[in-house]
């Protein structure tokens, strides 16, 4: 996501070699994501009947549509997927590499539709900390995980896999995503 080029079709008078790849600055992306989570938390609290689930819903839905669109672009030139495990492995390797420049560190499954993805050095947590540290910072960092949850769910949905994705973190910068695939 940091170095996702914006593809544009070449103008008639330019050759394809002259079209520049447009990249996004990584720090801009960092600031934007921080502010997004903060704004949604702040503005949702003021709505009537809103609670932490409403924040989760908003961030996750945003991630869902981003995930769908990313997958449409990323799987364009790729051969067909064999089965669900192949799809999850694609998410752990290719999608994670594009978004976070690394792969998922640990993938576990019970072969009955539950996958656990563990990232020991989650990129968006690398610069987060609080005064107290430990469990307190883990709790405050949880809303930052909901957008990636949505991205994973959107990516799976567009590849034909209906799922529920939840995430948790016990100590920064490690985090775990749990994918439950509908039977």
């Amino acid at each position, binding site marked *: 996501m940091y170095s996702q080029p914006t*593809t544009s079709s070449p103008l008639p008078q330019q050759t394809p070699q002259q079209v520049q790849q447009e990249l996004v600055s990584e720090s801009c992306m960092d600031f934007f994501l921080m502010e997004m989570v903060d704004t949604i938390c702040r503005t949702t609290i003021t709505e009537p009947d809103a609670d932490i689930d409403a924040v989760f819903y908003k961030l996750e839905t945003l991630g869902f549509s981003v995930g769908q669109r990313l997958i449409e672009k990323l799987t364009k030139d790729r051969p067909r997927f064999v089965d669900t495990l192949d799809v999850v492995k694609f998410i752990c390797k290719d999608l994670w590499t594009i978004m976070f420049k690394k792969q998922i560190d640990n993938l576990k499954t019970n072969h009955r539709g539950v996958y656990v993805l563990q990232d020991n050095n989650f990129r968006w947590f690398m610069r987060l900390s609080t005064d107290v540290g430990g469990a307190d910072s883990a709790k405050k960092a949880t809303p930052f995980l909901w957008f990636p949850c949505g991205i994973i769910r959107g990516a799976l949905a567009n590849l034909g896999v209906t799922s529920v994705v939840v995430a948790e973190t016990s100590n920064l910068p490690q985090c775990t995503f749990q994918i439950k695939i509908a039977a």
Partner: protein
Amino acid sequence: MSTVINCIAIIGKQNNPLFIKNFSNTHPDLKYHYIAHTSIDVIEERGNGVRSLDQYLGLLYAMEDLAVYGYQSNTKVKFVVIVSVTDGVIRDADMKSIFQQIHQAYASHVCNPFFNQDSPSMTLSSPSFLKSIEAIGTTIPISN
């Protein structure tokens, strides 16, 4: 002898029609709607049966003077291109490149945040998408 594309159709994940563009004036639109609809069955049969790892499905079927080619993306979106049959041989590589251009135009259109993929009545109508499909449809694929 050159072959001209008669129609490009795009069918969504839930087999809903997303887009259809008629380039010829020999057949009415309705006929191409009918052809695209029958292509869905053929694509599903080809795609789920023998597990070929390719998105390009080749010639689906031919009827009267029209040949129908299909392509299914990883996101289960189906592209159908209908060409008029002439004496020339249509190369797979040419059809593949046409489908890849259509896929590229579709992927660019999907990235529009105002386009809701899951709404069943959405059709693809952005001007740049229409322009790129127009450009694909009016270039002649084979020049023998």
